[in-house]
């Protein structure tokens, strides 16, 4: 029962947040768009005029582009598969009756709160170092040759580190979803003689479908732009240069702003494709 008075008050109260976010979105976005159509080299002559779509063409035809796309897809895909599969298993495990459930849950979600630079450094030095790393000791213990993780198995290493960081997120959300499952339904199925595997396939998994979709979409958006993990470990070498890292290098390291901005526009389009699906689900939830 909103009056005219409260409506205009509401508009005024919303204004600061809306205006700030509008500025935050439009100003840099416009600048990126403008730069992407220019030859712009801050260290070598500055703004050298309009070049049309040249940057866009050059970005996708450069030899670094397709490998970067491949790297990005492998990292995002690998982390998604690991976190969702183990997340479902872990969520089901944590849902079982046990002693010290609360503590186990704390242990499992802890990695999510470790800042990315710390987890990257700890993994890089204390676990993956080929001489002093714990994994090297483990390999030697079993008589195997220690692995040069970050150079010989660079992608596996990055996927391991990032999965470790995101597994808690997937687990926590899937656990929340599993706990809303009606246990009577499961009992009924059990009494009717449904085997554990079919109970999982026909009851638990369909119930989790929505939560899994949300986990996949949200993680994809965050994973597309992982940065610190690569910055701290390989700096994009050994085939770990993602699209995000490639753009970062073009913009800040080689200071080719025009080219980097065109890459940025591609990244924004890519993220938006994922975001549209996420927004649909979130939007539907708002109506309910």
């Amino acid at each position: 029962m909103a009056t005219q008075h409260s409506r205009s008050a509401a508009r005024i109260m919303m204004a600061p947040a809306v205006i700030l976010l509008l500025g935050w979105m439009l100003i840099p976005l416009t600048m990126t768009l403008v730069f992407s159509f220019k030859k712009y080299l801050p260290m070598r002559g500055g703004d050298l005029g309009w070049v049309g779509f040249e940057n866009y063409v050059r970005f996708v035809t450069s030899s670094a582009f397709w490998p970067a796309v491949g790297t990005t897809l492998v990292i995002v895909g690998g982390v998604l598969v690991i976190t969702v599969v183990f997340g479902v298993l872990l969520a089901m495990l944590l849902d079982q009756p046990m002693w010290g459930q609360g503590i186990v849950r704390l242990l499992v979600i802890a990695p999510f709160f470790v800042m990315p630079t710390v987890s990257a450094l700890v993994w890089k030095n204390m676990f993956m170092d080929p001489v002093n790393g714990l994994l090297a000791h483990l390999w030697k213990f079993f008589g195997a040759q220690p692995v040069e993780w970050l150079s010989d198995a660079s992608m596996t290493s990055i996927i391991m580190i990032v999965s470790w960081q995101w597994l808690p997120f997937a687990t926590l959300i899937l656990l929340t979803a599993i706990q809303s499952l009606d246990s009577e339904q499961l009992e009924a199925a059990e009494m009717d003689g449904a085997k554990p595997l079919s109970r999982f396939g026909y009851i638990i998994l369909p119930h989790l479908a929505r939560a899994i979709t949300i986990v996949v979409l949200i993680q994809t958006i965050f994973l597309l732009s992982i940065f610190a993990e690569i910055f701290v470990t390989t700096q994009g070498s050994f085939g770990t240069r993602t699209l995000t890292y490639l753009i970062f290098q073009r913009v800040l390291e080689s200071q080719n702003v025009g080219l980097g901005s065109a890459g940025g526009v591609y990244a924004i389009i890519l993220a938006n494709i994922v975001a549209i699906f996420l927004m649909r689900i979130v939007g539907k939830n708002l109506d309910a």
Partner: protein
Amino acid sequence: MARAVTTQRKTINTIFAWAVGLLIFFPILWTILTSFKTEATAIADPPVFLFFDWTLENYAVVQERSNYMRFLWNSVIIAGGSTILGVIIAVPAAWSMAFVPSKRTKDILLWMLSTKMLPAVGVLYPIYLLFIKLGILDTRVGLVVVMMLINLPIIVWMLYTYFKEIPGEILEAARMDGASLREEIIHVLTPMAVPGIASTILLNFILAWNEAFWTLNLTAAKAAPLTAFIASYSSPEGLFYAKLSAASVMAIAPILVMGWFSQKQLVRGLTFGAVK
């Protein structure tokens, strides 16, 4: 009807879950243990787990040598300042969307969320350039503003979902009794909104504390928070396991404790209310 669980099954669950839990937690545990070793013990072959001479030396050295306190202080100011500023801006917005909804409320909420999905790298140079032009590169003020803007959509969204749960009838009753908008906010809404606001602050403080794209790219020596300070250890000369561990433990310990308290809010805040 609760399911009857045999003690045997419960025992198996417990052992299995604890094993998995400890395995996942192990890198953090190992870091904590290493932070209490001497540098020599830290790289001992074979590695030592518990039976070594525990020392606090690393913590003392890290604080003395690297101005650790200044980086810590930068983190506190950037994370705290951006969160508080964000909440001040978001409370009125979320309040009006929750209690005076219009046809566009849903669109505005979704649009705000969409700004969160903008990949940071896409606007890296413009922000960098604006920071130089405004003279706020490598300053805390600049970082506070950027962190606030990044997290503002999540703050608005979380507050909105909390405010939505406050029954509107109470507000109508207050209005009928002749309460003004100001009285309504102070006496009716605030007491009911405080828990939600507190959770929002907690989660966003954590997110801002751990943010590592803008902090790495927009700071140098002066305004660098702990994320950037720890990253400086990746250069070979700084490679001391025990000291690295001590610095890491100090950087993550407060957040770990806060994070453990914010489990529930994490789900709500990061799924934008889509999973409850």
